[in-house]
């Protein structure tokens, strides 16, 4: 599934549709274009307060992911996992660099999105909206909203569908 970015400019619906179609044709030619693939959220059990979201993100120009928001949780943060001497550590990060054309993978071994304080149980198959804000080298931001599907709690990682 690909979700193409939409600039946060108010455009009349018809024009918006036209732009969307032309964007589809233009592929990578647009100045700042970010693609999100395989967005998913790990389902929770009742009473479990937090979970992780994972995705692949590719930007056509050098840019950075500066925030992720979601209506399903009180707090949404980007975290980075590191493993040292068999100790898994997670630290919040302010932004994630998106080098031009390079797919940055958010998976359980590196970056991930933390949904902290979920308002309700996330069940397998649920659609979880994630709004990503990407800042280009020129300082301009674009927002992309994707619907991440909730996968079973026991899903292994973003790369392998089980």
């Amino acid at each position, binding site marked *: 599934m690909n979700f193409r970015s939409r600039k946060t400019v108010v455009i009349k619906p018809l024009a918006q549709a036209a732009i969307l179609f032309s964007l589809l044709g233009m592929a990578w030619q647009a100045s700042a274009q970010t693609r999100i693939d395989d967005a998913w959220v*790990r*389902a929770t*059990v*009742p*009473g*479990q*307060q*937090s*979970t*992780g979201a994972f995705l692949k993100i590719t930007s056509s120009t050098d840019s950075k992911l500066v925030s992720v928001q979601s209506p399903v949780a009180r*707090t949404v*943060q980007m*975290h980075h*996992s590191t*493993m040292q*001497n*068999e*100790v*898994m*550590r*997670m*630290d*919040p990060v302010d932004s994630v660099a998106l080098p031009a054309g390079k797919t940055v993978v958010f998976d*359980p*071994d590196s970056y*991930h999105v*933390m949904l*902290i*304080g979920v308002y309700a149980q996330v069940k397998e198959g649920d659609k979880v909206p994630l709004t990503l804000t990407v800042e280009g080298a020129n300082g301009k931001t674009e927002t992309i909203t994707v619907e991440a599907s909730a996968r*079973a*709690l*026991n*899903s*292994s*990682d973003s790369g392998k569908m089980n």
Partner: protein
Amino acid sequence: MSTLLTRRELIAGIGVLSLGVLASFDSVAGTFKYGWDLSGQARGRSFTLKDPQSNQKTLASYQGRVPMIFFGFTQCPAACPTALARAVKIKKLLGPDGDRLKVIFITLDPERDTPAVLDAYVKAFDPTFEALYGNLEETAATAEEFGVFYEKNPIGSTYTLSHTAMSYVYDAKGVLRLGFSQSRTEQECVEDLLTVMKAS
């Protein structure tokens, strides 16, 4: 170890211990191909924790089974579900021997992991998996006994945990045999587990 050690000293000590394990792995050709040979180490011999139904559990409760123990917390987005998902695959790959494996998840976050959440969490992976918990003191004592490091990392009004992501395997007589790194594949774990199962 004296009980008068400060937390800082304790953490430093645990760090040195785990470094020792890593160092010995490189230099000693052990019984196992992929896991750390922890044979005979005195970890986990005296813990007493509870299962979600409030039954007291010790290592002896699993006599005759091959326990594989992992420490974590249910709000963990990465290491814990990955380790438990691997355990599901390991159990399947073991075939009939899978029934001898007893996967045990010990929470390092008893303040948030209530028995009900814990039980639902591990059973979402496999209905035969068992969760164990203690109060804060029992949790700390158990982690210390295993050489498991953990600490709270505050994030605003909440926190996450850094923790040792090793899986510990005992033989059917309750003797510690193996430590699996998080990076080992299910196939690698199965090979070493069969070695343990054949010997016990």
